[in-house]
């Protein structure tokens, strides 16, 4: 695998196949926990950890996979890493794991991870799969954080609990509510589509 291919595999997940803004998969965490930047970042990192690890392991054992047992194997691998991530959060970032609630264990059924396992890890070598997991994971973290920044800024006037907007700014409660998640996501996807279409015209 050549260097430029690896780079394109990496940037692919960041932008062209960004899971939550372009492919619209992994919507559950995208909508549910982006009400603050800290939540979004932690969630993105946890997902990236699981994604990279599972991609790597699946890629290493891909030659031994039986078609009818592969989902079982994926689930086994993904569930293990998610559980590890969950325990680590509970042990070392206790308050964060409390505010994320059930969404960390729910990474197991996040379709971003299964999608990458099927599309990339089961077909390509460990290096490519690792880079792919890194790219998609970073793309996911990026889009979650972007939503988190917008929602936390307007919903609680702060970013990472550090107050940005003055007290005279009345926080828009709607932004930290689920309806705010839908609104923000819709507007951000609109913006991304606009940028993509402009790029296409130029190209």
């Amino acid at each position, binding site marked *: 695998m050549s260097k430029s291919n690896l780079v394109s595999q990496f940037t692919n997940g960041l932008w062209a196949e960004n899971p939550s803004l372009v492919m619209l998969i992994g919507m559950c965490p995208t909508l549910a926990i982006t009400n603050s930047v800290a939540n979004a970042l932690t969630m993105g990192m946890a997902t990236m950890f699981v994604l990279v690890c599972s991609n790597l392991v699946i890629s290493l054992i891909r030659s031994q996979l039986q078609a*009818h*047992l592969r989902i*079982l194997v994926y689930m*086994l691998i993904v569930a293990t890493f998610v559980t590890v991530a969950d325990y680590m959060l509970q042990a070392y970032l206790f308050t964060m794991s409390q505010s994320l609630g059930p969404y960390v264990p729910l990474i197991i059924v996040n379709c971003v991870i299964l999608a990458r396992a099927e599309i990339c890890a089961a077909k390509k070598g460990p290096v490519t799969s690792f880079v792919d997991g890194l790219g998609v994971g970073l793309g996911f973290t990026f889009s979650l954080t972007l939503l988190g920044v917008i929602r936390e800024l307007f919903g609680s006037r702060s970013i990472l609990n550090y107050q940005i907007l003055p007290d005279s700014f009345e926080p828009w409660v709607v932004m930290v509510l689920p309806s705010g998640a839908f609104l923000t996501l819709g507007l951000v996807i609109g913006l991304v589509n606009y940028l993509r279409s402009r790029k*296409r015209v130029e190209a």
Partner: protein
Amino acid sequence: MLMNVSNILGLSVLVGGPVILVGLGLLLAVGLSIAMIKLRVEQDPRIEQVEAALPGANCGGCGYAGCAAFAKAVVEGKAPVTGCTAGGEGIGQAIAKIMGIKFEVQVKTRPVIHCAAFEHQRKGKKPYHGVQQCSEANLVAGVQGCTYGCLGFGDCVASCKFGALHMDRGLPEFDYSKCTSCGACVKACPRGLIEMIPFTQEAMLVVGCSNRDPARVVREVCEVGCLGCGACAKKSDVFNVDQNLASIDYNKFDTLESLRSACEKCPAGALVVFGREKRIPVKDVYAKTQSDTQAEAQSEPVNS
């Protein structure tokens, strides 16, 4: 959870965890294996192979619901191995190999439009205030004089998924480097102006008119419409004039140069050349080659 179960079993977590997981794994894996043996649906393995070879764009250009449906149709013999237009020749060869069929080189068909009148060349245009789509404007009388020609609202451009079409002075321009010959534009044109023709040459000659009215009427509505005079047909049997409209028999079509004398006879300018990327009025093509040949003639006077 896992740990709770191992507690109940009275095992330490370090032993219990793996034991339970292995037990579960055994149970599920055996279950799935049995299910696979008992519930297995016999399927031609080639279907999977063909599907893997396809681009996976699910564009529908082949006329099937998606790549998987096309793969099934190919293996069942319902679709040609060359059916995937989006993938190009390479895929056709690959599928033919899987299917064990000899692959014949097939001429690529490409869309051309049988109207060559740019917006300023159409007569009798009226301000149109309806929905800005060909399909809508076609339902109304009097948007423009010619009832056969291009309306210029770009339904074909909108139908193209690959960005191979754009409007140029009221006529669609084809970019064949992006075209996958899916035929969406052919279906989109409410006046049926777009046709897929076999591109046996780099550049093909096309009759840029669809108007079957008598010459008098054509002149009234268009500056470049085919008058049906038959001048071309007199010079070459590639041309055929029927119901006041010239057409080209592409089975007899050889090279552009061989049709030169016929083309020069055309009084209307309805003949156009569709090249690799751009539409060129036939006059310009020959004008260019003429100057070229003149230049050649000067340098090599022996040949003339």
